[in-house]
């Protein structure tokens, strides 16, 4: 415990002085502010006209337009937050353990009375802590930007921010584990490809489950298996609510469009307890892989 705390403490000091994380944080903070302000200016200037509908049709309900704009605003903020959470996850994952192992710092550290388990626990704890603090600060900024323009969706934003942090933690652990086996840039590329492939698997699984890709039993079987070997992205109900609001707005303008319920069903819904349990399991598995890699490592 003592060793893990010492490793965590000085890993946080080391990470806090890395310019790359500072740069990601500043770009993230500026990006969120720019997206929030830009979208609000754009929507208040132009969007009212674009929702007027075709000549002769009923004008859409202003409450629905506002709801749609609020959701779009939150979704864009969350997308920006998610992007920077991933960049920061890569930044921390590529450096937190790799630099100690590659620079030779691990030689001095491992010759001290610290177990590899305590070292791993300290490193993973510090990495997760740093990610939560940085993305937490960006989330607070996103909430403040939201409040600046009326607010009302703080809870949605908070839930989605938590989901983004959780997804970033999974990716960061993959990068951490891989970077103890291979060069950290290669590790980041492999993790990126794996994460993208996992996203495709989950999306296709959802499409198949909602019946949008036919009812081929073999396809069902394959994607059911693949679905349970990859991490699942956690989400709030914001993406589904956004699509629903958009389609309802579209329908209320009198234009023909897809069936709202069917279209909404194809969008991933909020993560349930099974998804959260799977996320916990995946995090434990990847953290264990980091430990196994560190334990096996000869320096």
């Amino acid at each position, binding site marked *: 415990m003592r060793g893990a705390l010492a490793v965590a403490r000085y890993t946080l000091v080391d990470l806090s002085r890395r310019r790359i994380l500072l740069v990601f944080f500043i770009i993230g903070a500026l990006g969120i502010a720019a997206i929030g302000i830009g979208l609000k200016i754009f929507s208040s200037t132009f969007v009212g006209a674009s929702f007027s509908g075709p000549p002769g049709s009923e004008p859409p309900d202003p409450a629905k337009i506002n709801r749609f704009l609020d959701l779009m605003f939150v979704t864009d903020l969350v997308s920006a937050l998610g992007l920077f959470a991933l960049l920061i996850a890569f930044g921390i994952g590529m450096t937190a353990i790799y630099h100690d192992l590659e*620079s030779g710092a691990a030689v001095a550290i491992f*010759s001290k*009375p*610290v177990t590899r388990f305590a070292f791993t626990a300290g490193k993973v704890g510090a990495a997760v802590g740093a990610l939560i603090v940085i993305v937490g600060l960006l989330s607070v900024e996103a909430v403040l930007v939201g409040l600046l323009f009326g607010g009302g969706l703080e809870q949605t934003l908070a839930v989605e921010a938590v989901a983004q942090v959780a997804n970033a933690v999974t990716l960061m652990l993959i990068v951490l584990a891989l970077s103890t086996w291979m060069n950290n840039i290669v590790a980041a590329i492999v993790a990126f490809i794996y994460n993208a492939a996992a996203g495709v698997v989950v999306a296709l699984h959802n499409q198949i489950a909602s019946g949008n890709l036919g009812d081929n039993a073999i396809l069902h079987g394959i994607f059911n298996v693949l679905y349970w070997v990859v991490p699942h992205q956690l989400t709030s109900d914001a993406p589904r609510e956004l699509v629903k609001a958009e389609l309802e707005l579209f329908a209320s303008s009198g234009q023909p469009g897809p069936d709202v319920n069917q279209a909404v069903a194809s969008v991933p819904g909020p993560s349930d307890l099974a998804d959260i349990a799977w996320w916990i399991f995946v995090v434990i598995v990847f953290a264990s892989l980091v430990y196994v890699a560190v334990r096996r490592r*000869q320096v």
Partner: protein
Amino acid sequence: MAPVVSVDALRKRYRRRDPWAVDGVTFALEPGQAFGLLGPNGSGKTSVVKMIAGLLRPDGGDISLFGSKPGDPAARGQLGFAPEDPDFPKFLRAREVLDYFASLLGLDEGDRKRRIPETLAFAGLDQERRQVRQFSKGMKQRLGIAQAILGRPKLLILDEPTADLDPLGRRDVRALIESLKASGVAVLLNSHLLSEVELVCDTVAILAKGHVLKEGSMAEVVPEGRSLEDVFVELVQASAPPKHDNLPSFISDKENQ
């Protein structure tokens, strides 16, 4: 007297198709003894000390460190290891590195407050405010020695400790070894600087290609009227006689002159 470390028939190779980096090395080190491990580049010296420090896994043989395996953290708590080409988390300062390692060693607040400034002063880093990434090789080497002695070890392993030090730094390291020996600390010294080894070590082992060529007290290894360097060169060359004068042809070729 029970040895602080004993190594028996130690073997190590890095890949299955590689030759043995360490093959059948055996020695023991008692309290207050300074043991010199000598050998040309690639002879297996660093592999031996890294196995003793629990950083590498042996492929054969036994190591007893204070009566335990090197993997036992309690045994490593009595060990100080100054690695060759030491490095540290590069965004930390010297004082923070020592505080980090003091935490790993489990030193209490009082010991930290006393030992860290004294150790920094010994290493000549007490006025240094820059981060490790801005340190020269010599400064890193001094910090490497500082962290190795911070826990008042009963066994100090120094792997090429003076390679990047200036003459004053070398003199300080010699004085440190003498002082530690006098207080009963065992010192295992890996060095290319044979004159230095001759000055401070009681016993030596000469390694080549992972094998011990000769081991014993300084008087046993170095006969009267000869130097350690003479013996070292003779033994190492006998184990792998050079096919020619080893000079590149463009240097030794008379036609080009």
